[in-house]
């Protein structure tokens, strides 16, 4: 009887050992998976770190003067990279005007061309803008581009060029100089310099705004730009 009980106990013991073995194997598998998942997360974190480190390079700075407003001594510099054919740029333009008026001499604004390839008339408009800049009428023409964007966005490049010539006439520009400029290389080179500068600053979309070199989130535009200016003014004091 004693021996039978011992055998029963032995069987039970073996079963128990098997159960423990299974549980231990299961735990090991779970641990291995967790370690693998941990490695995956570490890999992603490492990738984020590498990307962040690789983006620390200094951007190219174009040497040609850009259309600007406000004193050079202003504590806050607002840089915009924009495309005249981009609807979002047209949307932010009146808000930007209002904010520049409000902050007056405390801020300086600099405009940079960044015509996007998907907008067929954007480069032509950017060149026309540079030619108006040569005659001191950049912001007036840029207002025309934005407020009348729907009139020229869907035109062929040739027709858009005619439309821009009409705008230039309306603004009273020297049309001979304007025509020479739009067909020449200088304005196109300045647009390309802006594009290179933008690319080196990792601009991919328009409008992109930077306040004292720091890119801002452009939605909601008014709130975020005001906050960035206020922060920059506070930091400068």
């Amino acid at each position, binding site marked *: 009887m004693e021996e039978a009980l011992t055998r029963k106990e032995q069987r039970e013991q073996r079963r128990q050992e098997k159960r423990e073995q299974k549980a231990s194997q299961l735990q090991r598998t779970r641990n291995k998976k967790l370690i693998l998942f941990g490695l*995956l997360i570490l890999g992603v974190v490492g990738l984020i770190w590498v990307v962040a480190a690789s983006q620390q390079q200094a951007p190219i700075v174009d040497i040609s003067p850009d259309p600007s407003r406000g004193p050079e001594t202003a504590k806050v510099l607002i840089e915009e990279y924009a495309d005249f054919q981009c609807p979002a740029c047209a949307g932010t333009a009146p808000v930007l005007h209002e904010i520049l008026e409000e902050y007056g001499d405390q801020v300086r604004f600099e405009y940079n061309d960044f015509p996007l390839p*998907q907008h067929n008339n954007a480069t032509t408009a950017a060149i026309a803008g540079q030619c108006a800049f040569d005659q001191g009428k950049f912001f007036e023409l840029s207002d025309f581009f934005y407020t009348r964007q729907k009139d020229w966005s869907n035109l062929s490049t040739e027709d858009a060029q005619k439309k821009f010539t009409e705008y230039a006439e309306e603004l009273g520009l020297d049309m001979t100089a304007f025509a020479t400029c739009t067909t020449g290389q200088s304005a196109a080179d300045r647009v390309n310099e802006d594009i290179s500068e933008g690319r080196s600053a990792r601009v991919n979309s328009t409008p992109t705004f930077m306040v004292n070199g720091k*890119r801002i989130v452009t939605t909601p535009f008014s709130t975020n730009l005001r906050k960035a200016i206020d922060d920059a003014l506070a930091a400068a004091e």
Partner: protein
Amino acid sequence: MTLSPLLSKYIRHPVLLLVVRLVVGGVFAVFGVVKLIEPHEEFFSVIAGYNVLPAQIVPIFGTVLIFLEIVVGLAFIIGLYVRWSAAAIAGLLAMFLVALVQTVARGIPLEDCGCTGSLINLGESVTTVIWRDVLMLAAVIWFLIVRSNAWTIDQLMDRRHPHSPTADK
């Protein structure tokens, strides 16, 4: 209702399930990496454009979203915690769909859905993006219903321990 054995065999076919994992997981991982490479402010601006989240939350939400997209995308591709990663992808897709549909319902113009990051411009309309997400969600739900671990890291590890609750039966 039971499926015919032939149909049942095909919808559980490991090659088909692997394709789902590679395509859907690939979309998440690749677009996540693209968003990581581009300036984050651009992605945050797109998220803010949905008019759903308060502006203060957007940067944190955007950062977590990029991280999640890459992690769950890669986990789904290699088949690590494959059901959990499938469930997480389904959850993210459902969230994207709700966000997209509400912009249509509220008449919010979206120039860019932010799905692919600004470095890749597929030029899709919101409707196209909705259909693409619905298709991916359906594929992931099918994957979850089929409950197969075929050709996954999970299967590889569970084979060594057939008693694992996640082992392929």
